[in-house]
């Protein structure tokens, strides 16, 4: 790819040939972008990945089956039992509608296609478009013809973006990153031309973005910030006025059409910068106008009056409305971006998600490879000219890297700008060193004498001297050779990362047999299929929220909680049921009409993403609501260790989660050799005893274990007594053994 782009910039003269080359290179880049995302389909199969995509897939199927208006009013009674969810009003419909439209369009063209395949392949298809959008955006920044193509190539294959857009990763980000980059392109275009048409287009795509992803707030904050910085630099112009006003007015109206967003754009604080800058732009525009028709003295008094008045009224209004409660405080997820300690203390449910953790440096390098050090270089190069659009890149780069540092997930929003500025740096180097022209020594000295003047006062110090070019072939060969090596390594790095790290569906796991052949572990689907075939249509399944969407999507059974974590209390209820003893959990499960409980256990296989490892978050979230009944401290030994073996605390051993995970586990091993391979712990030979639930199904590798909640005893005993009677123990013994141990906490 790198070689191809260099070809485009070297000396082919005809305009038509260049265009043809450019189009074919862009097509090749798009093809490479799509192809590199197909690893998962080739390795595994055409399957929806992970967690959230299963909900999106289910919603899309509903949309395709029932039509748009039913989808809009969809009340889903099969999730969040017994509450249900107003799904139509609490989702971003952009993704589902996009695939629905594609589906119907293909049907109209009589292409027989399955909605699942559209969903699986949507993200790769849009990645091709994203590469094109990156090309357009970069071309606005520089005159170098190769920069745009390099940016498109980077964007197409960089792992930072592939991580969220492999085939099967049917999530909002699949289309949102394209919309993000394209909206930025339209904004730059509108700003450059001062055109209302481009501004309206920008608003239109902004509206599409709002319909697609909660990350739209990034645009909502970045564009006003750009405008603000420009005004602060004294670069207010009518172009800025027209483009910003058009975007804000139309974009806000467009965003309010989404039921989930509704009146948030005029209420919540994360939309306030946009509103405030809108006011500021009007004010500055007014001042500009007045200045042209007033004497300087009068104007000064006027400015002071207007400024003091406007700022005073604005501040008072903001404070007043906030204190009266009309304007919501920062939403938790957003707030945790600024005050980094906030989430840990106040909202464990946000802190518990691994995507919301801060980013260590290896993650940056892993996702961006060589681009990470070309990125600052590119930003620096933009300071040479520092036109309005370059200011945008600088502002974006600063905020993008801050946000990416705070939250792993926001690496995604940083990636486009990294690609753009790295491409600018790389193309500048390549353009300089690939030029066949050799500077003439005498000309150089002449030019040095005459050109010393135009060095701009405000420019960078490095660019104050005239550009003469590279003299020797050796220099050119060395630098170009180096760049080619780095670019080739970048391509192999991206391929390696994509195939190794980002192409696992996580529903299906792959492992290697001793002889090197691939072994597929398909326990998730096995369990979900079992639920689908062996339980009643409306059997309620209780599991930790991570698996809610998958159970809904694959097993088609109602769940108590799922990945749309809108109700913290309900999640804490499940956490409490999991972390309490059976006596406490059973009434909770009865109240919520739970029929089956599903746990994920990786001890046999060494699968570390299991429920015992997530258990502390269940405890913490439950503790947030019931601090007297669930205490994190009790799950740690007196030495502060989190253990599962014989040394585990009584609270731990009696918790429902522990019992369900290790029930009967010792029977797999010879006496004294029961081992949990994830935590490397040797377990006692006496396994836990279950009274109120019974094992219903355990998958091949024990990854999923399903338990049935027992009905009330038909002769009125409590279930512990009934269970111990069934085990053939005398009543006395059971009394001693059962409840007393269990009430320790």
């Amino acid at each position, binding site marked *: 790819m790198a070689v191809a782009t260099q070809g485009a910039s070297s000396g082919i003269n005809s305009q038509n040939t260049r265009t043809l080359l450019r189009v074919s290179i862009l097509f090749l880049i798009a093809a490479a972008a799509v192809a590199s995302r197909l690893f998962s389909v080739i390795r595994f199969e055409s399957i929806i990945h992970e967690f959230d995509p299963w909900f999106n897939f289910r919603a899309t199927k509903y949309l395709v089956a029932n039509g748009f208006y039913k989808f809009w009013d969809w009340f889903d009674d099969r999730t969040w039992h017994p509450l249900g969810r107003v799904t139509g009003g609490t989702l971003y419909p952009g993704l589902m509608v996009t695939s629905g439209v594609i589906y119907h369009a293909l049907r109209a063209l009589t292409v027989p296609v399955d909605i699942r395949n559209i969903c699986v392949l949507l993200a790769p298809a849009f990645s091709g478009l994203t590469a094109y959008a990156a090309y357009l955006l970069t071309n606005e920044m520089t005159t170098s013809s190769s920069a745009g193509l390099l940016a498109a190539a980077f964007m197409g294959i960089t792992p930072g973006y592939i991580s969220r857009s492999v085939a099967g990763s049917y999530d909002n980000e699949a289309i949102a990153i394209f919309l993000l980059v394209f909206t930025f392109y339209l904004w730059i275009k509108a700003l450059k031309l001062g055109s209302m048409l481009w501004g309206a287009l920008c608003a239109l795509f902004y509206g599409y973005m709002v319909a697609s992803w909660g990350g739209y707030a990034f645009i909502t904050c970045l564009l006003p910030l750009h405008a603000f910085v420009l005004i602060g630099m004294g670069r207010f112009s009518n172009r800025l006025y027209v483009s910003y006003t058009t975007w804000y007015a139309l974009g806000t109206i467009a965003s309010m059409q989404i039921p989930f967003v509704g009146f948030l754009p005029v209420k919540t604080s994360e939309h306030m910068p946009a509103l405030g800058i809108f006011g500021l732009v009007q004010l500055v525009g007014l001042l500009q106008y007045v200045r042209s028709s007033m004497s300087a003295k009068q104007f000064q008094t006027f400015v002071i009056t207007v400024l003091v008045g406007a700022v005073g009224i604005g501040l008072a209004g903001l404070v007043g409305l906030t204190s009266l409660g009309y304007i919501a405080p920062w939403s938790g997820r957003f707030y945790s971006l600024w005050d*980094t*300690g906030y989430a840990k203390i106040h909202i464990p449910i946000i802190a518990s998600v691994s995507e919301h953790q*801060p*980013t*260590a*440096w*290896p*993650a*940056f390098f*892993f996702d961006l490879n*060589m681009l*990470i*050090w*070309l*990125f*600052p*270089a590119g*930003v*620096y*190069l933009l*300071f*040479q000219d*520092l036109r309005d659009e370059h200011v945008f890149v600088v502002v974006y*780069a*600063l905020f993008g*890297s*801050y946000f*990416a*540092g*705070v939250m792993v997930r926001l690496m995604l929003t940083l990636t486009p700008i990294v690609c753009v500025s790295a491409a600018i*740096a790389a193309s500048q*180097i390549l353009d*300089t*060193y690939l030029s066949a022209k050799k500077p003439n*020594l005498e000309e150089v*000295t002449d030019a*040095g004498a005459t050109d010393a003047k135009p060095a701009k006062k*405000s420019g*960078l110090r*490095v*660019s104050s*001297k005239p*550009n*003469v*070019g*590279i*003299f*020797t072939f050796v*220099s050119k060969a*060395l*630098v170009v050779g*180096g760049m080619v*090596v780095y670019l080739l*390594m970048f391509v192999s*790095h991206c391929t*390696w990362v994509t195939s190794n790290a980002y192409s696992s569906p996580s529903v299906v796991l792959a492992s290697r047999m001793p002889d090197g052949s691939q072994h597929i572990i398909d326990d998730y689907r096995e369990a979900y299929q079992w639920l689908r075939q062996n339980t009643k249509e409306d059997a309620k399944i209780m599991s930790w929220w991570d698996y809610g969407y998958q159970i809904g999507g694959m097993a088609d059974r109602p769940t108590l909680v799922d990945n749309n974590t809108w109700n913290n209390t309900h999640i804490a209820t499940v956490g409490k049921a999991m972390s309490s003893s059976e006596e406490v959990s059973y009434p909770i499960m009865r109240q919520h009409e739970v029929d089956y409980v599903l746990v994920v256990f990786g001890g046999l296989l060494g699968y570390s993403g299991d429920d015992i490892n997530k258990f502390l978050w269940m405890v913490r979230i439950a503790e947030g609501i019931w*601090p*007297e009944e669930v*205490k994190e*401290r009790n799950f740690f030994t007196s030495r502060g260790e989190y253990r599962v073996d014989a040394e585990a605390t009584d609270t731990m051993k009696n918790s429902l989660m522990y019992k369900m995970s290790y029930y009967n586990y010792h029977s797999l091993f010879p006496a004294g050799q029961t081992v949990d391979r994830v935590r490397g712990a040797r377990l006692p030979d006496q396994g836990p005893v279950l009274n109120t639930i019974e094992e219903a199904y355990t998958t091949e590798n024990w990854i999923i274990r399903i338990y049935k909640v027992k009905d009330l005893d038909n002769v009125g005993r409590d279930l512990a007594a009934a269970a111990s009677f069934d085990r053939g123990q005398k009543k006395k013994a059971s009394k001693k053994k059962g409840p007393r141990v269990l009430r320790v906490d």
Partner: protein
Amino acid sequence: MRLLSSLLSVSLLLAGSFAAKKTPTGRFDEFHAKSLSSSPVKLATSSYGSWTAAPRDYSAAVLLTAMDARFGCQLCQSFQPEFDILAKSWVKGDKAGKSRTLFGVLDFADGRDIFVSLGLQTAPVLLFFPPTEGPHAVASPDPIRYDFTAGPPSAEHVQAWLARQLPDRPHPPIKRPINWTAWIMGVGIFAGGISLLVTASPYLWPIVQSRNVWASISLILILVFISGHMFNHIRKVPYIAGDGKGGISYFAGSFQSQFGMETQVIAAIYGTLAFCAISLAVKVPRIADYRTQQVAVLAWGGVLFILYSFLLSIFRIKNGGYPFSLPPFM
């Protein structure tokens, strides 16, 4: 000593039962009157006994602490002001004593025997004595102990804990005193800063307008963020750590963690690499002398290559299976 302490505790018990002879209501009024003048009340061995004696129709929160510098109790020092705020705002918000709650502090120096008799090894300990008589009586007269494991708690946190122990009674909210010095200092610094800016503006203005300054600020910030500084800030990672064999390890051996020193090394590497790229792209083509230019290309290109190879070798420490490398750090 042992004999002495047991004697003492017996005498304490006796003192407590004598005190209990008084009607509990009368006791509460007396203690409450005392706490109105200064809250929390400083207790000693005898007053502790009478406060916590068994038949009581009020609740008491008693902080057992060791403020003396000799004990070096960090937690005591940091929690004491919070407890004072809690006690003050509670008593102020509940002048009539409707919640029937008292706040007391027993320092180790004043009540060594109590510590011994309770078998306390650590401080601070916050005990809550629920009422044993009256409408809110509980069955067990034993105090409830506050859990200090999560570091020094805020007054609000303890207030919420107390509120949970005291259902159906008023819970006066925390009112922190306005920190006048901080406000005056803040206003003063603000005004001073503004006047300094105004007077120095002829000198500052060129700096503010200098593109070089802004470029370097932006680059430094970007480098700080992309080298994982926010991770250090949030996770409070150590600067460096021992490797278990007496040496020092500068790089954490896992993909998900890092040390403070490590991020600085990485930031420096990124910065140098970026600087090499900038030099190659902008500075070198502007060198008018072809010999100097040749040397500059060799130097910058060489540094770039070697540092990138070094960066890859560091990355292989973090990610064991990473297959790519460049000479010389293979």
